[in-house]
């Protein structure tokens, strides 16, 4: 079946074009007009556009996050933003549109949280949903009209307007797709996920967590095998098993013992200049979180086995299985703690404030002045000239 054999680019372009065409059709059917609109058809077309868009995202850029909860949250918030955006555009009643816009704001704030911006989330909810939309509702109450009216029941060129908007969005998406392909081509790694575009700066990334989780299961399996090991040959296998489990960790936390120079992925990522001798290392992220992660990695390193240790414990005449098990349990705890070292942006507010008032002080002053001028201007524009009637 080479009849429909398309290149990846053609396929992606086709998906985008299909989504855009369905979107144009949906808005054409849904936008208000005096002769009545076809609501079910419009909703069906928009749903189709959303499905094609979602499949484009999933197929081209991969699952957004390895974590199930985060993926679900991402899809939920983005679907919410798009859905309520469509409601805002297509609804005849501007008051309902304002309420839909409040929901768009809430969904966007969810996306902000996923991008580690809690301060912005709070500020956006307070300013947009709290202040701006309420002001809009006041003005809407002042100017409420009964029955059909020119402004609410007519649209200006729904076909051309929809085409313009969706052509723009489609072109942006296509450019994004091509950029992502170029970024992929630069990458020599396997194409199982597009690692180069992940957000950097996490203390632990997905690979680290994967390696740690694999090490944890290996460690459990080795401990179970140790229970069943009766002969020396069995124990030799267990020793190998433990060492194999530990090799998962050493790629992440590094290995300082026995002269093997392996810095570990956490150190390599977090350190800008490695520590030579007593001088402390310079960190990319000199915050509490990364320091804590490095300390935890050091504790995992300290809790680890050495080969000779294992062999003396297990290969002698009276094997000391319980001591090895206790040590394995301790190592397991440390690894689990390292695995759970979160990436919560607890210091986001403080860092944002520091950045605003040190690097962008002039801009803050200008924004304040702008607000003052806007207040004066709004009062000047809105007051009635002359005598009140």
């Amino acid at each position, binding site marked *: 079946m080479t009849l429909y054999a398309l290149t990846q680019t053609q396929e992606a372009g086709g998906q985008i074009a299909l989504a855009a065409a369905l979107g144009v059709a949906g808005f054409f059917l849904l936008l208000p007009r005096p002769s009545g609109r076809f609501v079910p058809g419009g909703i069906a077309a928009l749903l189709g556009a959303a499905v094609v868009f979602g499949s484009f995202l999933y197929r081209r850029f991969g699952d957004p996050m390895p974590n199930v909860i985060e993926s679900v949250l991402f899809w939920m918030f983005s679907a919410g933003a798009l859905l309520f955006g469509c409601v805002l555009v297509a609804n005849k009643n501007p008051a309902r549109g304002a309420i839909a816009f409040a929901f768009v704001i809430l969904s966007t704030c969810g996306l902000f949280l996923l991008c580690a911006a809690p301060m912005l989330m709070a500020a956006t909810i307070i300013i947009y949903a709290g202040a701006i939309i309420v002001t*809009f509702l006041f003005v809407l109450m002042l100017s409420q009209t009964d029955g059909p009216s*020119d402004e609410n029941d007519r649209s200006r060129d729904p076909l051309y307007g929809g085409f313009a908007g969706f052509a723009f969005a489609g072109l942006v998406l296509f450019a994004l797709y091509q950029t992502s392909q170029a970024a992929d081509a630069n990458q020599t790694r396997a194409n199982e996920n597009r690692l180069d575009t992940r957000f950097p700066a996490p203390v632990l990334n997905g690979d680290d967590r994967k390696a740690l989780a694999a090490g944890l299961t290996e460690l459990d399996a080795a401990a179970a095998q140790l229970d069943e090991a009766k002969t020396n040959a069995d124990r030799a296998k267990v020793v190998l098993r433990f060492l194999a489990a530990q090799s998962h960790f050493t790629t992440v936390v590094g290995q300082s013992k026995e002269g093997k120079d392996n810095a570990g992925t956490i150190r390599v990522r977090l350190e800008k200049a490695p520590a030579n001798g007593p001088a402390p290392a310079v960190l990319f992220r000199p915050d509490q979180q990364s320091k804590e992660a490095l300390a935890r990695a050091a504790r995992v390193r300290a809790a680890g086995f050495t080969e000779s240790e294992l062999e003396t414990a297990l290969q002698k005449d009276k094997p000391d299985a319980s001591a090895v098990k206790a040590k394995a349990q301790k190592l397991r705890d440390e690894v689990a703690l390292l695995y759970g070292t979160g990436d919560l942006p607890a210091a986001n507010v403080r860092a944002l404030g520091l950045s605003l008032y040190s690097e962008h002080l002039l801009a803050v002053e200008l924004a304040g002045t702008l607000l003052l001028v806007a207040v004066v201007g709004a009062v000047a524009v809105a007051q009635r000239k002359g005598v009140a009637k």
Partner: protein
Amino acid sequence: MTLSLWHFLAVGAAVFGIGLVGFLTRRNLITMFLCAELMLQGVAINFVAFARYHGNLQGQVFVMFILPVAACEAGVALALFLNLYRRRRSLDSSDWQDLRELGVPAATDTEPLPKPAMEPDPVLTPAGARPTPAAEEVARV
């Protein structure tokens, strides 16, 4: 946490596109303004995603400046809308199309608006004969 930048950029672009459609097609000034705010939200998603991607706060700072600018915009725009509404008793942006570019023909609405469904006046069935006024009764005040 392996967040990928592309997803957020794509969602931002889609939100911006929907806002653009609304801004171009709707005629209510307030809805148009809300659609412009929707476009701003799409841009804000981009900024925050890039801030996360680069691991610094510059993008978030930019969004922090979008917020007061949007608030100023809302204040001044609503004052303007109130003034316009006082003049024409309508929020239709086409009412001010005499401000359009030179040489562009005026847009006219050909389709008539649907008549609002009015409740018919109540009709009472007459009961009995209509009284005839007596001759001596000249005026009853």
